[in-house]
């Protein structure tokens, strides 16, 4: 049986770990609040862009802009959004597994751009050609942060380097549920004109094609931005839950250790008393 001192030392180190995981849990919780707010705040913009695109779709056809046209064949680009930092629970494992499955299910020529170190490390091991890598965009990603990535993707697509672009990221459903999700951003999927006024009643200034020209790159950037925000909220959720579990486990461990500490202590006291008693008897 371990000595009293050993057990005491272990209790000390588990307590230290508990303090750290607890602090991380609270940090993640406050970052989650911010990330969640940012995700929700960004939604109206992309919804409005969708509306305008739907209006445009009523007057223009898919051939009017190369970003809209379906392409046959061509290389597929995956933009993989993961985290830079570890200790985010099963989040990265899940998304890497999802990508692996996706690659097996859709064989063909492939390249990948990663956002976040975890995804890059995983992709390196698979040998899929890595076109570019971006660090995650800090705790508060801004729209301007994702523009270089969006421009890179759009330009390469227009140059016909790729026939299709998918973003794979963790969709934030709730604090407990984050779902790996694949979203095709290029070619831009056709949207339905669902709203009150049919698109063909709008006047377009300076012209429908000029509006489209401006709208499409922004649409791509918005979609990527949304994915980055969702991934951020997912990361903090997942980390918060993982750290909460770790803290609880540490508490349980401390309880177990304290119990065995007391047992050893009691055994020692009993032994000492027997020794004293037998010493006295021997006299």
């Amino acid at each position, binding site marked *: 049986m371990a000595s009293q001192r050993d057990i005491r030392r272990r209790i000390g180190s588990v307590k230290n770990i508990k303090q750290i995981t607890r602090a991380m849990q609270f940090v993640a919780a406050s970052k989650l609040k911010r990330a969640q707010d*940012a995700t929700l*705040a*960004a939604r*109206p*913009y*992309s919804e*409005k*862009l969708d*509306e*305008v695109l739907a*209006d*445009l779709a009523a007057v223009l056809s898919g051939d009017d802009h190369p970003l809209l046209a379906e392409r046959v064949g061509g290389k597929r680009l995956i933009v993989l959004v993961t985290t830079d930092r570890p200790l985010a629970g099963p989040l990265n494992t899940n998304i890497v597994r999802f990508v692996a499955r996706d690659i097996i299910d859709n064989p063909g020529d492939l390249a990948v751009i990663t956002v976040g170190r975890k995804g890059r490390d995983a992709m390196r091991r698979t040998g899929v050609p890595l076109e570019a890598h971006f660090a995650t965009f800090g705790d508060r990603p*801004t*729209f301007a942060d994702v523009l270089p990535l969006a421009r890179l993707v759009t330009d390469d697509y227009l140059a016909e380097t790729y026939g299709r672009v998918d973003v794979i990221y963790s969709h934030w459903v709730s604090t407990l549920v984050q779902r790996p999700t694949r979203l095709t951003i290029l070619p831009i999927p056709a949207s339905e004109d669902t709203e*009150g*006024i049919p698109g063909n*009643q*709008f*006047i*377009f*200034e*300076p012209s*429908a094609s*000029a*509006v489209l020209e*401006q*709208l499409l790159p*922004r649409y791509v*950037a*918005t979609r990527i*931005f949304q994915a980055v925000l969702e991934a951020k909220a997912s990361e903090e959720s997942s980390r918060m839950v993982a750290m909460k579990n770790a803290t609880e486990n540490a508490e349980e461990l401390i309880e177990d250790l304290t119990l065995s500490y007391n047992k050893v202590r009691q055994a020692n006291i009993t032994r000492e008393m027997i020794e004293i008693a037998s010493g006295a008897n021997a006299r």
Partner: protein
Amino acid sequence: MPLLLEIVTPERLAYSDTVDAVNLPGIEGELGVLPHHAPLVSILGVGELRIRKGGAEESFAIVGGFLQVRPDKVVVMAETADMASEIDLEKAQQARREAERALEGGAHIDAVDLSAARAALQQALLRIRVAERRHREGPRHRG
């Protein structure tokens, strides 16, 4: 009939309220929108967006994006939108100096940085203009 105005940017919903009229910078010049406007989709320029509501006036510095007008609703999808009263004049001036410094080093920076610096300068100047006008005139009230 009230006119609902919504100003959205990629990062947030900046404004949502019913207004009497709104003036904004279209790509082909200043645009005034009153209720019952014909359906319109336009590219936005860089400039000041002015809202008239009751007797009061409120203004935003907006940069780029789109505008969708329906008879009862105006949606502004701007790259950035800063309410005049929220603009930090000092910060804007700081940004202006930085952008000007970047532009002075003209020969040494590449095209992307150059256009970024130009855009930053343009935005800083706009913010300063909008904030200063408000500072001079104060929030306007009409009888």
